[in-house]
């Protein structure tokens, strides 16, 4: 089974985003960038499918990683290759595309690559949209299994345990399908030095958005980006009795 894993280069999850003074966006100059954490989980799961770790041996035969972003997104693809993916595709774009445009581009990649499974993060930690996987599934008329905490592949199906409100739900989707990953699916590995070296020799094809003949015209205009109202730190209280008295006077107890 061929697996396609879309990955995104985003601000590192340990860095606090700062809004630009002119309210045009978030300042990404000189900020550490990394692979989106949910994408890392998707890459890890695909690699485990190939290794047979937690999955039937060689469930995945080939792992293709695709990223849409600036030239530096190549580093993100290299990270995935070092984790164990086989080859990469970079669709270069200097503007941050909307989920609809990303989904359309990925649809074009799927039509070219013909994977049986698209495994991807449920959301990127910059735009926080949580939309591309669902949209790609819709555009392809494929079933979807979002927020995966466990995936089993077999009999032409992916049986996925999903994190939902109130607990977990297990569904079986016919392949080909789109599965999006949640936090509890796995803990991604750190690439070993030999694998980082090996990854340097793996192929990355570079493409332009225009190569896919897809309309990526924005539908949304960002008018401004502002800082949320700040909460002020309150007071330290000495003990539980004082706390209860304060909460009673606030009317919340």
């Amino acid at each position, binding site marked *: 089974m061929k697996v396609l894993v879309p990955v995104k280069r985003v601000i590192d999850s340990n860095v606090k*985003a700062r809004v630009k003074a002119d309210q045009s966006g978030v300042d990404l100059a000189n900020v550490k960038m990394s692979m989106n954490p949910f994408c890392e989980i998707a890459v890890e799961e695909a690699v485990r499918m190939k290794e047979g770790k937690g999955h039937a041996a060689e469930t995945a035969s080939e792992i293709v990683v695709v990223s849409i972003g600036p030239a530096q997104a190549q580093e993100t693809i290299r990270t995935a290759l070092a984790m164990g993916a086989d080859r990469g595709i970079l669709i270069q774009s200097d503007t941050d595309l909307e989920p609809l445009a990303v989904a359309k581009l990925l649809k074009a990649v799927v039509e070219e690559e013909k994977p049986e499974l698209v495994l991807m993060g449920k959301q990127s930690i910059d735009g926080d949209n949580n*939309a591309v996987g669902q949209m790609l599934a819709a555009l392809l008329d494929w079933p979807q299994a979002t927020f995966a905490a466990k995936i089993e592949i077999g009999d032409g199906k992916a049986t996925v345990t999903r994190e939902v409100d109130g607990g977990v739900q297990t569904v079986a989707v016919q392949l080909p399908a789109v599965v999006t990953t949640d936090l509890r699916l796995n803990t991604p590995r750190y690439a070993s030095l030999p694998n980082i070296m090996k990854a340097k020799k793996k192929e990355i094809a570079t493409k332009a958005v225009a190569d896919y003949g897809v309309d990526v015209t924005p539908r949304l205009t960002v008018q401004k980006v502002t800082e949320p109202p700040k909460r002020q730190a309150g007071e330290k209280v000495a003990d539980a009795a004082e706390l209860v008295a304060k909460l009673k006077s606030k009317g919340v107890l």
Partner: protein
Amino acid sequence: MAVLVIADHDGQSVRDTTAKTVTAAQKLGGDIDILVVGQGAQAAADSAAKISGVRKVLLAESAELGKTLAEAVEATVLPLADGYDAILTPANMDGKNFAPRIAAKLDVSPISDIVEVISADTFVRPIYAGNALETIKSSDAKKVITVRPTAFDAAADGGSASVENVSGGEAPKTDFVSEEMVKSDRPELGAAKIIVSGGRALGSAEEFHAVMDPLADRLGAAVGASRAAVDAGYAPNDYQVGQTGKVVAPELYIAIGISGAIQHLAGMKDSKVIVAINKDADAPIFQVADYGIVGDYKTVVPELMTALG
């Protein structure tokens, strides 16, 4: 202008997330219809009809809708979409699952997790784990929007809309296998007035429950957890409060042994009053807390139980 609100419900009645989404819909203007999808959900549809300002309630039923499968919701909504300028639903796990799917089929850019309606085409939504708010204007003729319920007041009851049946969609390529729901007599996280939330400091699942459950029961509170506590297996995934878990805004949020990672703060910083109990005086949680006690939960929580009487 007409707006369709896809309801969040438990089969018996609509959750207050639905009434809050109706408030957001009212800000767009125009007629508001509510779509209830499910199986055996007549009672939920009847309760939706009582929300004030609703023109009519549409009830769609099928086995797949009973499990809120995204493909089935999409198939139900698409034939109705022509009649509406906007489709809104709460940004809970179900809404997040099906709304983008509907948007893609309609060739529109979804607008996720809005916290404010500026006008019928302009909205405010959090990005970067709530560290920034973006104001976006949509040029799509039809809008598909998920609404962060905690950002809106619930629309009042007092309506008497009619309930009509519409055809329920199916999900031919997806089979429901099973579900495991966390059983609890406590209020749901999203609806609770008080939340007590535990972190990694609690050290084990046994300790988590031994400390949090009696306190929650004493306060009539829901129990939440930090991502660290959930990842460590101390609490079920459904308890997670934070950027990718549940976003909550209760009257009172008591964080116990939670350091306050930005991803956690993103999920609870809109609470009215925040209390932090942590033995590390420098923990970031104290920077957002109205009241803090620096101390070991092992002594503070029993004292709190005594003080509550």
